[in-house]
């Protein structure tokens, strides 16, 4: 597994009357296979997750992924760390499913014919055979999230950061995507409100008001959060 280090990281944003701290000073060493981030809305979970591949920049401190500094070596970090958004509509940027997966493969497959074959293979791996020419607009929530996941994993990242990937899905698709994520060989950092899913991870962190309130065994952390949400 990869090793993710946060060293005295804070994140602040400018406001009309100064700055507001979104994430208080945080030091973490993440090396477990499946790590859950839980907590109330606006607690700083997504900010913490977005730090891991440079979507958010630390105001102070530094974030390292396998020794690579996210701020200085962002390109190399992003090749190791894939990111999955809550809303697949925001993540799918090309008109059709095949083209969207092929976009991820442009670096690894410069030859177009090989790229399209590889894209079809990735779609098949995720049970999306026959979806290649489908418009990304016409996909259901579950299909869209599956395609988003296929697009991210097409480049075989070492780490997958998933920011509430099941929040917009119905129960069936939520279970399907959740099971798929937990079964991946990649290291997974999962931001979620699904406490059952969080409890199945190897480690859980409860984030509240920009601070890590609880960190450790998922069953214990989830129980603590259930008692005082």
């Amino acid at each position: 597994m990869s090793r993710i280090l946060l060293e005295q990281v804070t994140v602040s944003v400018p406001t009309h009357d100064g700055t507001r701290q979104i994430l208080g000073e945080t030091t973490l060493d993440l090396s477990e296979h499946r790590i859950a981030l839980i907590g109330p809305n606006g607690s700083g979970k997504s900010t913490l997750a977005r730090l891991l591949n440079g979507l958010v920049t630390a105001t102070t401190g530094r974030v390292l992924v396998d020794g690579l500094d996210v701020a200085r070596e962002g390109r190399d970090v992003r090749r190791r760390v894939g990111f999955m958004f809550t809303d697949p509509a925001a993540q799918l940027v090309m008109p059709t499913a095949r083209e969207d997966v092929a976009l991820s493969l442009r670096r690894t497959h410069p030859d177009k014919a090989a790229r399209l074959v590889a894209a079809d293979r990735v779609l098949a791996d995720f049970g999306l055979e026959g979806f290649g020419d489908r418009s990304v607009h016409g996909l259901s929530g579950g299909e869209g999230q599956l395609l988003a996941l296929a697009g991210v994993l097409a480049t075989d990242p070492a780490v997958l950061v998933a920011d509430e990937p099941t929040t917009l899905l119905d129960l069936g698709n939520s279970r399907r995507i959740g099971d798929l994520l937990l079964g991946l060989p990649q290291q997974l950092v999962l931001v979620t409100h699904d406490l059952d899913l969080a409890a199945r991870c190897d480690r859980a962190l409860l984030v509240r008001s920009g601070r890590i309130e609880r960190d450790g065994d998922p069953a214990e952390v989830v129980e603590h959060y259930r008692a005082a949400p």
Partner: protein
Amino acid sequence: MSAQLLGLHQPGTTWLHRLPAGAKLVGLMLASIVVVGVRGPASALVFVVVAGLLLVRSGARLGLTLRSMRWLLLSAAILGTWTVWQNGWPRAVEVVGDLLALILLATTLTVTTPVDEVMDAVARGLRPLRRVGVDPDAVALAFSLMLRAIPSTILLAEESRDAALARGLERSPRARLIPFVIRVVARARDTGDALHARGVGD
């Protein structure tokens, strides 16, 4: 125009599908110059007929296409009425005809050409400009994102309209426009985040 139509490739084996993307792009550019440059209502009608025939030959699903174009046709009718009032019939036929012809030609291109091929063609065409600092791949990606943005922006407009309707504010342009603009900006930021997260442009 419907979100389902614009930017959506429909696979097929017609001669238009087999034509290289670069040739179609150049053809569209040249056709646009001719359509705008040649004046008169008769030529505009000829352009509409030719563009319509090309779209039919492309194998596009005509029912879907016509349904999708209902708002465009309405807009063209309003534009035509205004032009009749301002400049008379011949000028109105020319303006609306040219507009319809260009839309039909652009639709034919998107229906018969995967965006990936369009990107490659644009990147190839811009390669000589690399010497003056142009990044062909970035321009090609921007081109495809522009195509992708059209249907998603239409969807956002429809959502904003529905939200205004649900709140009984259907007559308020402000209630439609402001949320729409905010959503478009938010979607643009999300798209930027998505590209950044996927390492596109690194």
